[in-house]
């Protein structure tokens, strides 16, 4: 009986990995339920012991929008592609907030869970990925506010809204790519933690959130797309508000940049992964 059972037992080989290892996506797939539980835990725990609870998810972009509207809209009189500045700004802040939160939370995800990493085996990638995915819930809430604001400003979304999921996907891939890079790096170099507030701030201004990319002329505008978030933000505005920054070359460049970031991040993560338990 045992022999019959034996033949069914899966064989695992444990050996030192050398250099750039494969991504081992099969294993990640096998642990999809764990990924689900991590996301679920994140959502359960995130706003525990806060007074405003989940309101924070929408308060964050709304407050930023108010500040930006005052300083850039009213005072600096930034051009906003002919749209009311608040909605012009908020349509960009919704995907941006998703990205910025993902970056901050995911880059700490491994260090915060050091205890688990040292004690139990599971694909480490599930931690940053779950953190990024759980941010989607906040995104949806903020997105509902965005729709409400649009109706307030009497803006009906154009037919281009069908492309919106693709821009969200682009934001997701960018977030995952950056998170994989930073979370893995953070295990070894705690400097990352101190760099992140600065990085998010710099990235915020390097992305057309307070202003429009129409300020730039070609070919700079296309080169600008190397910042994938530029593509995401312009895409959101185009799909929802009907700005004429049509998803031309900038989206293409952004998509390629995001993919490069994501794939390189995944390989970098895998390469460092084996030392996590010894170093973290």
């Amino acid at each position, binding site marked *: 009986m*045992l*022999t019959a059972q*034996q033949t069914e*037992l*899966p*064989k*695992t*080989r*444990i*050996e*030192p*990995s050398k250099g750039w290892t494969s991504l081992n996506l099969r294993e990640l797939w096998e*642990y999809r*339920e*764990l990924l*689900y*539980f991590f996301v*679920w*835990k994140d959502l*359960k*725990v995130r706003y*525990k*012991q806060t007074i405003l609870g989940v309101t924070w998810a929408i308060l964050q972009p709304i407050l930023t929008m108010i500040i930006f509207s005052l300083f850039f809209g009213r005072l600096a009189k930034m051009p906003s592609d002919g749209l009311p500045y608040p909605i012009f700004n908020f349509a960009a802040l919704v995907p941006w907030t998703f990205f910025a939160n993902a970056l901050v939370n995911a880059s700490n995800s491994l260090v915060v*869970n050091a*205890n*688990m*990493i*040292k*004690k*139990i*085996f*599971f694909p480490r990638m599930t931690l940053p990925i779950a953190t990024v995915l759980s941010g989607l819930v906040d995104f949806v809430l903020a997105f509902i506010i965005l729709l409400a604001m649009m109706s307030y400003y009497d803006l009906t979304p154009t037919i281009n809204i069908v492309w919106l999921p693709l821009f969200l996907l682009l934001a997701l891939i960018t977030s995952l790519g950056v998170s994989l890079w930073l979370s893995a790096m953070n*295990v*070894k*170099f*705690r*400097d990352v933690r101190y760099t992140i507030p600065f990085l998010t701030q710099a990235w915020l201004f390097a992305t057309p959130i307070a202003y429009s990319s129409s300020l730039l002329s070609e070919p700079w505008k296309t080169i600008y797309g190397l910042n994938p978030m530029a593509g995401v933000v312009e895409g959101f505005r185009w799909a929802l508000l009907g700005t004429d920054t049509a998803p031309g070359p900038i989206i293409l460049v952004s998509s390629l940049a995001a993919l490069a970031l994501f794939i390189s991040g995944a390989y970098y993560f895998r390469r460092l992964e*084996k030392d996590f*338990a*010894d*170093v*973290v």
Partner: protein
Amino acid sequence: MSNPAIQIVNLSKLYHIGGPQKTYDRFGEQLADMVAAPFRRAMKLVRGKAGSASELDEELWALDDVSLEIKHGEAVGIIGRNGAGKSTLLKILSRITEPTSGYIDIYGRVGSLLEVGTGFHPELTGRENIYLNGAILGMKKAEIDRKFDEIIAFAEIDRFIDTPVKHFSSGMYVRLAFSVAAHLEPEILLVDEVLAVGDLAFQRKCLGKMDDVAHEGRTVLFVSHNMGLMQTFCTRGIYLQDGHVASDGPIGDVVDAYLKSIERNEAQNLVERTDRKGQGNVKLIDVEVISCREGASSILKTGEAVRFIFHVNNRVPGMNMNFSIYDQIGQTVMQFRTKDHSPKDIHDPGNRLTFICDVEQLFILPGRYRVDVGIVGDNRLQDYIEAAAFFNVTEGFIEGRLESHKEKFSVAIPHVWTLPANN
């Protein structure tokens, strides 16, 4: 039965300590180190302090060329002192860390009780933590659903299942955590000293659970310093010493080999020990606990004659000594004192520096025991050493009755029963 569950081939694990691979670096530090390292190495080479470049880092081979085969259904005890490589081996087996060279083939799912409760979130309820922890340990949701009631029942926390675990007592917390891990039902179970937690009643329950696992024909690898437990659960022992396999065989033999080496060390170190109290005009320099069976073995048996010999380095007026015996969990068993005279006590004119205590029959149950020794002289405490020696008792006969290991008990008294008639 002959199929291997675990096949370890030439496994080595190298840790860099203090070398370039620090716990974690600041980037600047790393950069400076990278620049400086070649020069440092060159200097060492010039001074002739090392033969080759690879010897220059502080290196520690936690495991060094270990090859083992563990068969399906074996219960293996891994024995060794701290730092011998036991935990490293379990960490590699559970894939927490990678080996430096060599490989392991594992057949079946591995579950580990390396530390229970890791991954518990204080804000989540007992119920939620069962699912989360189960998933982290590698269980599927359906599997957890199926075992859910069993897990709660085992942990004895049914009333609090919907309370956040941050309100749990530490006992409840540990019980729940162990219960989740214990219901993982892997083909291969790794256990590392988890039984140091919880109260005695629960510990026994955990032991029972592990016993079940072992008897269901699954493979168990057990790391513990408790040799009694080892001998109860395991059939085979592996003794690791400095990353090598020092001994591998039936658990009894391996435990003996380990204990002999430990006791040898303890006897040697007694003189150098500084964790002692008292004036110090007289010092205990050696303790021997020997069986009076032929061959004067160091393996003691319940019911047999035993001799305790204490060597001291000096004599002072009015010298008295006493020693106390404690069991595995630190409970007192008995005390012997020279000042409680007996007409049978002997003063040997030829003996200057030893106290010998002969015990005609050792009325102590099988287990591991600790000896604390105190010496008084000149009306003052001269020397006191905790854990001056350890000894192990294996099962033996008292009045023709086999006295075997009894959890929580340590004394056996000769006795005779009168029973109702046999029908």
